[in-house]
């Protein structure tokens, strides 16, 4: 079913999609899009791989096993941008540089903590998408034994009835 053509095009599409995601995130402050959209786009890129190659193949991708941790990493990054100012005596969630001050630039890119926050969002959404889709994909493999499990689960429910 999965022809060579699919595989090749999926592989080819991966990098550009990720680049688009990066772009969407970075340009978010000027144009539509932000970390969230970027995360979804990147996750979709992996979803494509997942559909084409199947979950087994995906596991071979480096770091993919650790993608779920991206969720927590992202959350921590976002939390840090929110709470570090608070530790430093400023109001919670005060971004750096302060309002009105000019920010260090690289070309048209401005380095501000809001971007770090957005990176956190990106990581969470990306991790979520990939994690959820790949667990669904893996669950499919386990469906074969589900009949047996149901029998077990029903027995468990019978027991549960006496303990609650």
């Amino acid at each position: 079913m999965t022809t060579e053509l699919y595989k090749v095009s999926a592989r080819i599409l991966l990098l550009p999609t990720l680049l688009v995601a990066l772009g969407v995130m970075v340009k978010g402050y000027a144009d539509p899009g932000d970390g969230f959209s970027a995360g979804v786009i990147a996750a979709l890129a992996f979803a494509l791989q997942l559909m084409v190659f199947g979950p087994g193949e995906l596991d071979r991708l480096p770091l993919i096993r650790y993608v779920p941790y991206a969720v927590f990493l992202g959350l921590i990054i976002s939390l840090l941008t929110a709470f570090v100012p608070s530790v430093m005596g400023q109001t919670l969630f005060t971004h750096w540089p302060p309002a009105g001050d000019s920010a260090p630039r690289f070309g048209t890119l401005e380095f501000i903590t809001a971007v770090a926050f957005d990176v956190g969002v990106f990581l969470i959404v990306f991790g979520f998408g990939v994690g959820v889709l790949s667990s669904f994909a893996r669950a499919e493999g386990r469906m074969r034994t589900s009949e047996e499990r149901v029998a077990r689960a029903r027995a468990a429910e019978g027991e549960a009835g006496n303990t609650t």
Partner: protein
Amino acid sequence: MSWLTDPNPALAVLIAAMLAPLLTVLAGAWRPASVRAVAVGTTALAFGTAIWATAIEPSTFSIMWIETWNVQFELAFDGLAAMYALLATGIGLFVVLYAAGYMPLHREHKGRPLIDDARFFGFLLLFMASMVGLVMAQDLLLLFVFWDLTAVASFFLIGFDRDEEDARDSALMALLVTGISAIGVLIGALLLWQEYRTFSLPLIFEQTETSVTVTWATALILVAALAKSAQFPFHFWLPRAMVAPTPVSSYLHSAAMVAAGVFLIGRIYPLIELEPWLGDALVVIGAASMVVGGVVALTRDVFKQVLAYSTISQYGYVVVMFGLGGTYGVGGAMFYVIAHALAKCALFMTAGALTEATGKQTLSESGGAVRAMPLLAFGSLLAAVGIMALPLTIGFFKDELFFAAATEHGRAMQFFAVFGAALSFAYIGRLWIGIFLGSVKQEHRPIGALMTWPVVALGILTVLGGVWVQPFREIAERAASVSYAQAIDLDIAYHFDARPENVMVLGVYGLGVVLLLTERWWRNSMRALVSIGEVIGPAHLYLLTLRALVRLSDSVHDFEVRDLRSRIASILGPAGVLVGLAVIFTPTEGTFVVGPLQRSDIPLLTVIIATAVSGVMVTFPRDHLRMVLTLSCVGYSLAVVYAFLGSPDVALVAVLIETIFALVLIAILVLMPRSILRYESRLRPARWRLGRDVTVATIAGLMAFFVAWSALSRPSASTTVISRQIELTPLAHGYDIVTVILADFRGFDTMGEITVVAIAFLGIISLIRAGRLR
């Protein structure tokens, strides 16, 4: 440290009483065998403290307790408190001594462990402590606390033999009657608060004047008091409470629970005096209790039942005396309580001792015990003649006072008093004769001295009170003068003249002896009368109420919804009704606006129509996949709507989310076997269900419609918030205001939102992968 050198008597009494249960329980935790000794010791200490406090001047103690309501933790060791505290601790001491002998037998009998001693004495002494607290409490709220504590303690004591169904039921009954009626004290207290802005009894008494609120408050408190002292029609719990171990019964009947009821009447007597009909009501209720208790006691076969009904009847006297009022009424009531407590406690102990000795508990199975247990017979005889009011006992004076009070209220009252007293003469006589005289019907095991000597001691006290009445009289006088709010002088002595009281006493003896001798003639008719009473009486009403409640509960439960669909419908339906009501009951004029429709709106309108149509279309497909695709149609057209509404950000996210969501949905569908899904889609709902679904859905849609329309019809509130946000955006280093809001102005929301995502992720991982993270 002034409190050490110059201790406050009131506080000292409370602390001593409170120490008793505490130390007992601790002793139980430390060494269960020591519990009995500790209980006796601590009770003696409490009694000693009470005697000491009585001997010195009346004292008060007060400390701020609940500032918000200006409630003081206010105790007073006045005459009334002294009397009841002496009773609670003194009789308590006898009871604890008796229980120290009784409990090992009882435990052995029931096969219960030693640790149950701690439970028993702990609750018994808690009972004592709360009685002591109750009688000293000067604040209605504090009084309520102690009042309910006695109910709590009695619940556990009555249900002490919890493996017996009878004990459990009786405990519940006692709790229901006394616990629910206790709310009367609370409401009454609050009504008085409403009137006087204080819960403090002395302050209330200072400014009493009759008013409807005060009368109602007093009546409510009286209901609680009467229920607790087992007066008709609340009396039915008391005989049932007999299932408790005997020490509990003797305590309950003489110095604790039931006494608490009449104590409360004495405590709030200044309020009762304000309204004459309250006194009349007391007379009626007391008289009814006298008759009901007396008549039933005459027909009972079980000792404890006889005694229980006798208590109802005896406290009927007390209530009547309070109702009659005056020096003799109030003073007599106090004196009566003392006299009755001594004698009744001894009689209960006798009944318990006998049951432990013979295993029998009915009159018909007993007889001739005087030979096996002469000492017990002697002690209980003294107690019995005390209740029968023979001369040279303290009981004689109690009846004298009663008659004196009755005489003040005319001939009818006098006759009634004689009749009532004769009843008690008869049933107590019948009990004692039935137990101790006649032929021997049973074997006797030896019982410990601890179960005999308290009876003898109490019996001797009963006689002593008839010979040297002064101390008892003084206690009663001091108590009565607190209730009556003026000094009372009770003229207690033997008068050898033909004053009405003496004539009435003779009448009592005569009538009582006649009743005793003629038992075989009236026995059957009396029993028939009583069984009629059982069928229509309050006990039966109680039972019927409970059963009706259970049935009601069952039948209501049949209507309870147990299906998810109905659960949803039962939210949407009422919600729709509520919103509908809101639409009806608020002015609708100008509320709903159609809104202008410009040419430029036509694309938007078209997409909205497309969205709505595809929304409706989602409900049609039978096939799940097709349904998911239609749902995606809705999502994508919504994205277009958002785009037309000038929000590219939302449109972008909506498209992306819709895509990934469709993937997730399809993944789930893939996980479920076709067969099941296909089976589901082939099913057709019943017609009535379809009708219901459509109706509920229409209601829900209408609800959403009205809420949306009425809100949108308001012109968008002109807001400075948005313009400020727009102005501030460049300062926040951004150009896309929406993104800046998301990452900066309202970044906190975004953080919450991604936290939700993370939690959902955790949940999904846990559900699908059984918790493994990788």
